[in-house]
């Protein structure tokens, strides 16, 4: 292929963003003005039934202007970066703000600061185009064809230019690369799965993950129905991440202060096993840390759960100010770890299990009850019965009905943290874990 995508598109540079933001800031009549940039170029090669079924490449640049007159604020955005359109966007934002009611929670733009510089722009990912994606897709498909099983999946790569500027001197600009691979392989009625997300497209480990998914699908044949009920479980990292994502999404400080949070009254209290610690580690090479947030706050290293104790909440700026919280922590690069000696591998967790269920991944996790963080969802792409230290059979998929606040009260065993990503959560580092109790409420047909 002679695809021109190596030169297309030319993403908005820092200087261009500065020019665009100045165009707004110098013309704004508002008390406060913020300009945000998101210029996103992404390509995805999608395959199913061992064939390419979709191959796309798209660029969307968007500029948002937020202005405030006193406590009256409004936001307008555009994908048209011509001078006339940008000025029109400012005018639209001003019109909204001028007639908006005063917002008692409005705050001026954050005080300017020097944002951390992070290696978010991996050149190998930004240079990857349809050819590279097709190469990886073909590699995965090739392995599956050799085994006479069907593969479906995606290879994607993207670059996003992100910027924020305000009339008080706040300015940030960053390029963020992102590469993803995931596949589901189907061997008869059984499926296996693998996924990766990384700043570097060279770290997707397509072959390793494809072979692991194939092995999982082969092992998943002839699944039988085991009754629903309470079981010890071994949760692989993606399954752990699925449950912890909902726990993290529920840490909203405003709900906490209003009494509508599952954590109400629990700040400073133990909420999970005392060996568990949750941190934000934006500098970790395998996480998707950023330099600053969409609000213009620096992303920082922080501790959210310290040896089982809830130590931090997710603050909006107003709630933070009201609560006297000066530094607002972020949680875009979560890493969960367990204190104490860990098993070397998931296989070691299996070896030390007398009887339990091995769960590869969960699917369609949704809250059942926001008061106790009761969740439901399905096991997916590899659910197995473990007996006397060995996987003895595949079992049909279960629906679970469980709260992470209950399930993670006590861990039996764990591995070191590993990369984890699934279709519904962001990237995390989490251990695989063995838990003594987990409630499965029903069984499906496969």
């Amino acid at each position, binding site marked *: 292929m002679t695809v021109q995508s190596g030169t*297309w598109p030319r993403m908005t540079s820092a200087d261009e963003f500065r020019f665009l933001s100045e165009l707004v800031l110098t013309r704004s009549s508002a008390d406060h003005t913020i300009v945000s940039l998101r210029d996103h170029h992404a390509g995805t090669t999608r395959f199913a039934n061992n064939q390419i079924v979709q191959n796309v490449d798209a660029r*969307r640049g968007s500029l948002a202007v937020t202005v405030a007159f006193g406590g009256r604020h409004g936001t307008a955005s555009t994908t048209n970066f011509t001078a006339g359109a940008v000025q029109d966007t400012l005018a639209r934002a001003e019109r909204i703000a001028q007639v908006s009611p005063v917002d008692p929670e409005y705050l001026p733009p954050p005080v300017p600061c020097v944002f951390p510089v992070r290696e978010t722009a991996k050149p190998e990912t930004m240079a990857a185009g349809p050819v590279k994606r097709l190469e990886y897709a073909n590699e995965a498909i090739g392995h599956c064809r050799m085994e006479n099983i069907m593969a479906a999946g995606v290879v994607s790569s993207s670059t996003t230019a992100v910027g924020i500027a305000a009339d008080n001197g706040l300015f940030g600009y960053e390029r963020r690369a992102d590469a993803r691979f995931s596949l589901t392989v189907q061997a008869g009625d059984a499926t296996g799965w693998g996924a990766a997300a990384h700043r570097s497209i060279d770290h997707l480990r397509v072959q390793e993950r494809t072979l692991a998914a194939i092995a999982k699908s082969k092992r998943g044949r002839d699944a039988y129905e085991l009754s629903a009920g309470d079981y010890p479980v071994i949760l692989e990292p993606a399954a752990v991440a699925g449950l912890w994502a909902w726990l993290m999404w529920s840490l909203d400080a405003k709900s906490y202060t209003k009494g509508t949070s599952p954590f109400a009254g629990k700040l400073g209290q133990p909420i999970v096993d005392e060996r568990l610690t949750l941190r934000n580690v934006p500098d970790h090479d395998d996480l998707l840390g950023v330099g600053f947030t969409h609000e213009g706050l620096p992303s920082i290293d922080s501790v959210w759960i310290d040896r089982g104790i809830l130590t931090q909440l997710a603050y909006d700026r107003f709630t933070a100010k009201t609560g006297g919280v000066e530094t607002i922590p972020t949680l875009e690069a979560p890493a969960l770890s367990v204190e104490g000696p860990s098993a070397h591998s998931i296989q070691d967790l299996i070896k030390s299990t007398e009887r339990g269920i091995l769960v590869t991944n969960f699917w369609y996790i949704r809250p059942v009850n926001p008061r106790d963080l009761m969740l439901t969802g399905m096991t997916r792409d590899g659910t197995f019965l473990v007996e006397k230290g060995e996987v003895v059979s595949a079992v049909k998929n279960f629906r679970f009905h469980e709260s992470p606040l209950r399930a993670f009260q006590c861990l039996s065993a764990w591995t070191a943290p590993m990369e984890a990503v699934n279709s519904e959560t962001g990237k995390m580092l989490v251990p695989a874990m063995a838990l003594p109790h987990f409630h499965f409420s029903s069984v499906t047909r496969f």
Partner: protein
Amino acid sequence: MSDPTWDEFAELALKRIARSGAEYGDIRIQDSSTEHIEGEDRRIASIRDVQDIGFGVRVLYHGAWGFAASSILSLEEVPKVADLAVEIAKGSASVALEKVRLAPEPVHRDRVVTPYRIDPFSVPLEKKTDLVLNTMETLQRQPGIARSSARLWARRDRKLFISTEGSRLEFDLLAGQGECTATALHDGRFASRSFNTPHLRKGYELIEEADFPREASRVADQAIEKVKAPVVDAGQYDLVLDPEHLSLTIHESCGHPSELDRALGYEANYAGTSFLTTEKRGTFCYGSRHVNLVADNTESETLAATGYDDDGVMCQRWDIVRNGMFVGYCTSREVAPKIDESRSRGSNRADGWGNVPIVRIANIGLEPGEATRDQLMADVKRGIYIEGHGSYSIDQRRYNFQFGGDAFWLIENGRRTHMVRDVIYHGITPEFWNSCDGVADRSFRRRYGFITCGKGQPGQSGWMTHAAAPARFRRVQVIRGEGSP
């Protein structure tokens, strides 16, 4: 010199596609305006006016697809993007085994406009923010209500679709919606109750007809009643489900499994596949004789009634389940020939210019029966009446589902008695629909739309409407949505 017209941009792209030797190509140019007004706890938290313009070019070259899109609509950008789409299609073709063959569709030249009485974008912003603030005030006037929210949403899509086959379709579409929620606190517990207008292709009259002051007052009262209600006892119950609740049940357990691309494995890596595999068409008993699920993309005001889909196929009406039997799929021009259908059902849609169209659930609705709602309840000894949406989850082949709801009332000896809380029911899709033994008549039929139906990689949000009248289901397993079920 005047700016180029959209037709001139389209012509520029289609010429490049034709010159490449591709067998098919199309361009969609779209200009979307969205207004979000969001209130939270008695304040206007945000007002956003989002303008999104761009174009996408789709090319079928030697039986393989390529697609490229950009938000820069210019004479320089359009040929570059068209060429890139061609190059990507050529790359796909180089590894293709099975060639894509499109089902034929007549050439259409048409203009589709949403009829409306009041343009939502012309309504003064102050009037809309007043409505949002007053609604929250009404909600929080009720003692015991700790939190409130209210939202208004409006969207206009101007779109031009032109294909190398000669179709030229112009769209000027509107949609809107409004909603409010009250959250009550009592005895350390909290519970929410919501009112939503349906998402419909109507003007601001949709909001004015909704009577927010009355609905907000009702919702606040019911939030208090809900938080104080006893928790349900687990066990088997007969369920009577209201249309809003059923819209989600239909969407998840009938809509998604009837998407042919899922049945064929295209979505296996993300949204999943379907238990309604192709050999079941015409032979599988999906539900009882009372269950007639009809796809109708021609019904005015509904979200998928856009005249044509993004394949340029005219919207249609067809059966998905007839007298309980599974008989039809939602299809596109690509997948329809794979089950020997001569024409697409016109269910191929993208969520904007930047994404490629994929098979989407149509406006699938449950056909009305002959009973009244009271008659459905009269024959229930121990049951639950459920309104609105709550928790929902379903497996990737759409067999095992679990739903909550927004409000629940116990039915005892044929009468709706009092509220209960934390009701969750679960089942297996065909067993559940086979337990349906009554649907209320057309006078009880209501329509509810979805605009956040997630599918595809990269992810897209689908729009569709599901209509239903209340329906009764026998002996459904209910568990408690708190503590140990």
